[in-house]
């Protein structure tokens, strides 16, 4: 991965007028406004392509589907703020979901605890590697992702006849709606988001995450035990990912071992679109939320466009790339 170094690139001389430059400055300082605008454009586009699509039901569905991704992106945001990345979130989410469904016989609550414990274990392993042994997060989490995925496969062999099912309250959480419009998973996601946004800006722990992402050595010299924060942070990320897995399995009502795989790259993409720097130290969860919703709506858009699959893939990749490029230009 590239190190943070002074850019050797050159900027094109500014040809913009003062007003548009002011607008750019405004957008740079309030990227979330730009993101929300973009989201509106997508929604408008959907309504244009398929008039009558954008209804309260559709909006509520979109939010409901954005929730698992948004929750996975929450953990990813925490880790990326410290300059890391967690490629094991999908394995953790899948594993948590699978553990939940196969341990329901012990009682719903116990099954949820087991699922979350899985998150703690993988997160602790990530944390030990990254925080104590200073392994690169990308490699470490790639390894633990493979490892925990493999463990779940071996486990699944022993669990073929385990009467797997999804407990009612998880199913309600993942696919239920209050008064037919308010997705129940929002009642988990919104408080979690509020907690995270508050925590990142108004707690010592949040402060430290930004500080470590900005300059780990400076934190060390300032007497901060960096490894403690990183360890806790990776555990948090994995537990949040496990929660995401639970919401996900609630929406599908069954777990297979590829359940959350499709969310791995989008969880990173949502954070990047949301304006959190992959080098750490800058960004926040607010952007990731909008990023997750944008990606969900984009998927919707591509489904409704009914274009051939290859074109969908190309469009999906290209749109994320363009967004990231626009972001890089804006904040440079």
């Amino acid at each position: 991965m590239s190190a943070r170094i002074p850019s050797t690139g050159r900027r094109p001389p500014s040809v913009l007028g003062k007003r548009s430059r002011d607008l750019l400055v405004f957008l740079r300082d309030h990227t979330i406004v730009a993101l929300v605008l973009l989201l509106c454009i997508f929604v408008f586009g959907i309504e244009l392509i398929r008039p009558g699509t954008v209804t309260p039901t559709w909006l509520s569905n979109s939010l409901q589907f954005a929730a698992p991704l948004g929750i996975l992106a929450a953990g990813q945001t925490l880790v990326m703020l410290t300059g890391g990345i967690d490629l094991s979130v999908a394995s953790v989410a899948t594993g948590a979901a699978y553990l939940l469904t196969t341990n329901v016989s012990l009682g719903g609550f116990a099954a949820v605890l087991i699922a979350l414990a899985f998150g703690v274990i993988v997160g602790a392993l990530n944390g030990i590697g990254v925080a104590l042994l200073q392994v690169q997060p990308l490699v470490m989490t790639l390894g633990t992702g493979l490892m925990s995925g493999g463990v779940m496969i071996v486990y699944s062999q022993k669990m073929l006849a385990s009467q797997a099912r999804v407990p009612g309250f998880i199913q309600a959480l993942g696919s239920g709606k209050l008064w037919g419009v308010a997705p129940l998973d929002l009642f988990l996601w919104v408080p979690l988001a509020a907690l995270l946004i508050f925590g990142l800006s108004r707690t010592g722990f949040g402060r430290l995450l930004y500080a470590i992402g900005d300059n780990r050595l400076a934190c060390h010299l300032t007497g901060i035990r960096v490894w403690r924060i990183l360890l806790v942070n990776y555990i948090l990320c994995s537990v949040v990912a496990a929660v995401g897995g639970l919401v996900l399995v609630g929406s599908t009502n069954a777990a297979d071992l590829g359940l959350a795989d499709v969310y791995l790259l989008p969880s990173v993409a949502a954070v990047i679109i949301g304006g959190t720097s992959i080098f750490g130290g800058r960004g926040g969860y607010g952007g990731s939320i909008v990023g997750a919703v944008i990606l969900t709506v984009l998927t919707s858009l591509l489904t409704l466009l009914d274009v051939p699959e290859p074109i969908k893939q190309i469009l999906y990749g290209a749109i994320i790339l363009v967004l990231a490029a626009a972001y890089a230009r804006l904040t440079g």
Partner: protein
Amino acid sequence: MTEAATLLEIKNVAKRFGSVKALRSAELRVRAGEIHALMGANGAGKSTLVKIITGVFPCDAGSIVLAGVARNFRSPAEARRAGIVSVYQDPALVPDLTLSQNMRLARVPLESVTGYLAEMGIGKVDLSAYVRDLPQPILRLIDLARALASEPKVLLLDEITAALPSDMAGKVFEMMRRWRERGHAVIFISHRMAEVSAICDRTTVLRDGATVGVTETASGSQEQIVSLMLGTDIAKAAQSVAQPGVGQSIPKDEPPTLEVRGMGLRNLLHDLSFSLRPGEVLGVAALEGQGQDELFDCLAGVRRFDSGTILVEGKEVHFRHPGDAIKAGLVFVPANRLQALLQQRAIRENVALPMFRSPRSWGPLSMARERERVQSAVTRLQIDTRAEAELRRLSGGNQQKVVLARWISHGFKTLLCFDPTRGIDVGTKRQIYSLIRELAAAGSSILLFTSELPEIRLACDRAIVMFAGRIVNEMPAREADEATLLLSAHGLVPRVAAEA
């Protein structure tokens, strides 16, 4: 006097980064066969100008004329081909390549590099050694030799002597003179007035991104340069050198805040013992690499030592982590601000950082209380807060003040300052030293290493001199004139001779 031909002419160069104007109208005329100093306070635009001259980035306006031809270099390589080569403060050698590979990389003939190295008296360098295994000062000279090997018409030296021991600095000056004799030009950037007046023919002074004057080196030119750099009012203030309270008598009966007994670390530190009383500023003088880095690291809890003890207020302490040292009241200001600061975060967050050392502080924080604490420190240090949202937009001097503000707001018993004024302009330097005196007057003790020997007399009460990992001399600050310090720092002290 016949005017030699102008070799390099910079006319009206301007450069802005976003909303910040780094250069407004820089002018520079360098003749063939002269050593030309470029001076200016931090943030005056020296580095930007150097980077524009060497093609690191283009200028927005103005022109560069080399030997009568207008040029606009798009990369350092292009500038090099035209005969302009720069040596930076940190070497431009790639760490994972060997020396000879580095020379191939820059397309300079190996024999010529070894030739120049021999001229500088370091002919016996293993060219197959990896750069990452070599010490910094040697690399700086190798970098210079490499620059010379491409036979530049204009040689730019950007603070090359900032952390160079004086014998090596002497070699650099020797090479600069030789280059002048060959009819080439040298542009020399340094904060050290003595060096500039000793070696340079003329000086161009930048202030706030514009050229404010050119002086010939002559008697009295130093004062002229300072007043140009600072503007008249501040210059006067800067000339009153002596700090209040320097050399005051410290009551001997008070127990020391910090005592080091017999500290040893591999072959880097040997049986180091000294003590520091409340209200005392103890200066450490040494050439580069005599163990002072390790001493400060050990005291700050950054690394562990093999033998000996540290006592804080009479009690033995063990540091396993910088946090332990801070808890014991020892706080550290490293020379390199990049090691201490969060460049993308606000001043407030930088100052408040040590508050979050303990997991107990991980919870919700009181913004009002934090703001109050930070504000008082910021006001006291007169930190320019116009660009407070992101630290990287602050000038070097202001950044250094933020580090000090951090520890002042946090509180400490002993301040470990390692070369706090490296690369900082005269005005800020003065502010920092008077702050150090103030802190001492309020009862704190301060251990201060500085690479600029004259400063010992300005700021300290007492001085120790280190050589080869030992303390070789100790004296009251008023006796610590440059000559004495230099002699000791080279190990030329009777006491060492007696021991041997």
